[in-house]
């Protein structure tokens, strides 16, 4: 375990900037987002960003390849480039967990090389949450906000940052700034972990349980009559899918450049009317079916195909961003078999 003062953290960022692009959470005009560090950039007080670190690895739109046409010949231009080495600092436990969920999708065969490339070059520095939001429920998914994973884990305690390398990649980064860090024992951090446990007890959603959901429960939930009521006010805007750190659906599109074709992919949403539209039309024609798809995917289908792992990390972004305040918490509570979520 190492530590450095709040002032020295900027020296750490500066030193790392020569080998990496360092992205840190900043707050400007009530918005918290990752900004590339340069001299003078000031860290936000709270590190939870409005949009998650997913965007670094799976951006909203991304060029895939180009087709250049000349007469009757078509040239295919591979647009993949080696990603820069980069560090994302201050990632909360939930968002780091979401990357491991995305890995199950993008790094499974056939490997998504666009995602893999960025994942290999990215270093995740997590920070324990001492001030979670009212909408947080990561513990529902056994994620510990006091012991985040990642390449390096940090704690912000008083006037110091505490660092703990968790992977080779992380230790390599810490070695580069060793001169700026001092060795400490675990004492302060143990106390902070206890504090966080107390804070967790205050969270309004701390008792939310998903034990009724999981792998192979399709028949149990698919035809529940409550879906109609839950989805009735849904605008179908897909904001929940866009701010979600685990939503990973995309569409591939061709843009006519006049001289050829630019093929790119962009986020798609199961909440949209033209999602997975095929030659025969759309497989899910009503908003109820589309709404059901999103929550069944997170709570039943994904666990069915991924060793029981849910594709929700309880970050609470959908809870605070949905224009009509309908969200996975209300879905879980409504569909649970009475009792534990009352």
């Amino acid at each position: 375990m190492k530590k450095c003062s709040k002032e020295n953290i900027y020296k750490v960022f500066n030193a790392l900037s020569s080998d990496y692009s360092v992205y840190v959470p900043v707050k400007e005009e009530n918005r918290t987002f990752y900004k590339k560090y340069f001299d003078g950039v000031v860290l936000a007080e709270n590190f939870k960003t409005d949009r998650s670190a997913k965007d670094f690895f799976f951006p909203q739109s991304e060029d895939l390849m180009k087709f250049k046409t000349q007469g009757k010949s078509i040239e295919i231009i591979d647009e993949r480039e080696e990603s820069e080495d980069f560090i994302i600092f201050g990632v909360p436990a939930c968002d780091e967990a979401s990357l491991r969920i995305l890995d199950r999708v993008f790094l499974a065969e056939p490997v998504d090389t666009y995602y893999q490339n960025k994942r290999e070059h990215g270093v995740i520095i997590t920070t324990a949450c001492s001030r979670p939001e009212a909408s947080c429920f990561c513990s529902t998914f056994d994620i510990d906000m006091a012991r985040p994973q990642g390449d390096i884990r940090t704690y912000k305690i008083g006037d110091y940052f505490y660092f703990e390398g968790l992977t080779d990649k992380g230790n390599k980064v810490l070695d580069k700034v060793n001169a700026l860090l001092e060795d400490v024992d675990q004492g302060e951090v143990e106390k902070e972990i206890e504090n966080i446990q107390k804070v967790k007890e205050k969270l309004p959603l701390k008792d939310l349980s998903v034990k009724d959901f999981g792998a192979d429960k399709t028949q149990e939930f698919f035809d529940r009559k409550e879906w109609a009521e839950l989805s009735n006010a849904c605008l179908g805007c897909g904001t929940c899918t866009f701010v979600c750190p685990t939503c990973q659906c995309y569409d591939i599109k061709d843009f006519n450049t006049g001289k050829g074709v630019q093929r790119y992919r962009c986020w798609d949403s199961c909440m949209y009317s033209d999602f997975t539209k095929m030659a025969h039309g759309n497989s899910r024609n009503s908003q109820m079916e589309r709404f059901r798809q999103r929550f069944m995917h997170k709570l039943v289908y994904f666990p069915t195909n991924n060793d029981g792992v849910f594709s929700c990390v309880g970050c609470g972004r959908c809870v605070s961003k949905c224009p009509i305040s309908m969200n996975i918490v209300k879905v879980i509570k409504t569909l649970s078999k009475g009792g534990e979520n009352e």
Partner: protein
Amino acid sequence: MQKITRESLIQKGVELLENGTVDRILGWGKGEFGYDITPTVFYDKESFSKNFEFSSFCGANFSKYLLKETRKGGKILVFIKPCDSYSFNQLLTEHRFDKDKVYVVGISCEGMADVNKIKQKYGEIASVKEDENGITISTLYDGDKTILLDEVLLERCKVCKGKECVYFDEFIGEVKENNPQDRFEKVSALEKMSADERFAFWQNELSRCIRCNACRDVCPACTCEKCVFDNPNSGVENKAISDSFEEKMFHIIRAFHVAGRCTDCGECSRVCPQGIPLHLLNRKFIKDINGFYGEYQAGKEIGSRAPLVNYKKDDLEPSEAVKREEE
């Protein structure tokens, strides 16, 4: 005349369900924290009495939901606030639904709260309570706070267009005078900027757009059966920001499309997950229309012809409009 409370609305709703006037109710449904209200259709008095909510967090405008609801059988009760009634009228003007399938209870309103403003000022909120002294919030880290509604009003309530419902079958509540701020203040400030400054302002705001289209989905003036931007055959369908067209043009095109029909209900800005002040685009059109053709409020009267779709001999020549802009 009585002050509107949750109880008085439940009483009214139950009465109308019991006497058969309506068979269901569109109202605000309770949330997890007190401020996260979901528009909900209630089919029986038990669930209505249990889960209906009325508080300072009931900003949602229900008019657009009536498109869907009036296609079902029976008759639905809807609670309409004064500003929502303009959207209701505008939809009737555009023949978007059958008013005989709706029973409107107009309710007075003293303004609605913007929960984002409260969160920015007081931090994380675990729950809210409301009584005659104001709104009491239990914060997660800073104890209880009592706040005045006036401090945290939604943008559209600060410029309230009047306390009287322009459509209702019956009205309950008390109509109080109010002193709204000038709604064109920010538009005027933008007009005074240089073109470059204005461009920078909108570039900054619109660059955050994630094209979720929540503004369009909630907008009572956007009622196309299939939006051109959702139609893969249109050639302009898009889900992500693929180039600068997206951020610069989409919202401007939408503002043009609803110009003259927009009642300035403010739902677009209220629901934007990225906090973009989209209502300013619509207000610019309203201000211009008022200036060029005389004051006009969309939705004030059913069947009124908006200046942009109406020809009068003394209408301003287009060249005149350009000249005035330059002055």
